[in-house]
């Protein structure tokens, strides 16, 4: 069953085509890796999917209902949760309150939200810092917190933009375990990552973008062995 359908989506910034006629489907319970060198359009695509950017063309269907042009808050209520590449937390609110914002905004009662916040805090091993303001956390702890925010109410689809970047290996492992466990229970993800070993390990399927185009959409093994992908990454490094 198709949960998310991206059909011919494009986005231009002036003369630059950041996302070029991108199409792919994500089935329910799938965990899709989205890879590609820097500047290939991954974040822009997630911005479009989460309502932060308007596509110049194309269509996005969520549960077979068009959803392009909806605001981020409407999409959040429809079950699209997104983690930012540049971490976003509520810096002057403590860890618990950061989680409660999402829980309460998405319709949980006070007690239910608090119980879920505490469950997430222990699952993500944030116990020791749960009363600290988010602005006082380390970069990795902030990422872990933002990661938790995405799962206060299990989303229809979680869009994670480089959750492992610059994160301590221990926390990377916590996030990896969490993603694996939720995936086994049927959670749907798009995971953007530069960390190829993790992508190989977690994602059965990968989509690779380069300069706005989807250059291949296949099993992760096939994608990583594809000459176009190797070329794209090497070309990106040379530039």
């Amino acid at each position: 069953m198709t949960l998310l359908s991206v059909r011919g989506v494009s986005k231009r910034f002036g003369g630059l085509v950041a996302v070029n006629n991108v199409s792919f489907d994500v089935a329910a319970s799938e965990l899709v890796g989205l890879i590609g060198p820097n500047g290939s359009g991954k974040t822009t695509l997630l911005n479009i999917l989460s309502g932060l950017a308007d596509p110049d063309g194309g269509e996005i269907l969520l549960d077979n209902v068009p959803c392009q042009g909806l605001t981020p808050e409407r999409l959040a209520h429809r079950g699209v949760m997104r983690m930012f590449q540049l971490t976003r937390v509520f810096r002057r609110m403590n860890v618990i309150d950061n989680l409660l914002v999402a829980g309460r905004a998405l319709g949980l009662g006070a007690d239910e939200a608090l119980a879920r916040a505490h469950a997430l805090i222990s699952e993500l091993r944030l116990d020791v810092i749960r009363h600290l303001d988010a602005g006082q956390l380390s970069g990795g702890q902030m990422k872990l917190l933002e990661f938790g925010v995405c799962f206060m109410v299990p989303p229809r689809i979680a869009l994670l933009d480089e959750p492992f970047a610059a994160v301590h290996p221990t926390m990377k492992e916590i996030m990896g375990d969490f993603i694996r466990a939720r995936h086994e229970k049927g959670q749907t993800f798009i995971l953007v990552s530069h960390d190829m070993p993790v992508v190989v390990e977690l994602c059965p399927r990968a989509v690779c973008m380069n300069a706005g185009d989807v250059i291949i959409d296949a099993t992760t093994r096939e994608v990583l062995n594809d000459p176009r992908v190797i070329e794209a990454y090497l070309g990106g490094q040379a530039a």
Partner: protein
Amino acid sequence: MAPSSATSPAGNRSGVQLSNTKTTVEFRAALVAMAIVALIPLGVSNPYWLGVLIVSMYFAILAGAWNLLAGYTGQFSLAPATFAMIGAYTTGLLNHYFGVPPLLGIVAAVVVSGLVGLLLGRAVLRLVGPYLALTTLSFAEIMRLVASNSIDITRGDLGLGVAGLLDSRIGWYYLFLGALVVLLILFYMLLRSKAGLFLQAIRDDEVAARRAGVNVVFWKTTAFAISAAASGFAGALYAHFAELVTPELGLIGQTGLIVSMTVIGGMGTLAGPVVAAFLVYVLSEWLRDVGGYQLVVFAALVVIFARFFREGLWGLARAAVQRWGRA
């Protein structure tokens, strides 16, 4: 910055616990301060100083209302005095022209200023930082000039005479104090509810708030409306206390005082701005005798606090208590 985790055993308690103890501590401190204010007339009967304290309470309401908008929601509007003026003129004009009794006029003032606040909030929805400040400042000046120049209706700078409400100064003292305490209770309840979470989330990161599903348009305009309604309420009370309404209520200098009180007391703390309103206003009365330096002094204090003591006097007091508790 980390009150509960650093010093209290709350971090070790298991199971469900309250995360908004910070607000509760601040609320209790504010109530203690108000209890002290309630006792002052036992020792002070000089009508001049009682009057100074009544005006302090007027400003405490305005500082509390502005703090809700600027300190908790991050919307740096520069029109709080304007809403007091709108509230004062609402009941003043109703009373002057239609003989509407003060109590009814005060209710109307709350509604009208709240609605104007809602409209202003809508209009400035997409503005941030200096753009928001400048736009609300222009709004404030326009409203004041309208009040000042509509001489046929408002009698301009001469002011509009309105009916009194109470005969005794002590009566007014406790009426203002009661109003202030009621507003503190309402703000406390608001901040402890999910609204408090959403407002602070908007202050800290609007995009993250939207990602989390917070209806930013609704909550921002609500914050504007509530803040404006509370300011209008203070202005309407003041109108019947002074028995006169003038455009001076909406002077930028008044907003300057409200901002000073809030920043010096501690933006985004429930107790700080309310308590600082008394300190700043009483100090300004003293400085008045020394010769008109009060605005310079307050401007300097605002800069110092904004730069070095982000949580104001409240933050300093809390740090002192924690150091003392650890020693």
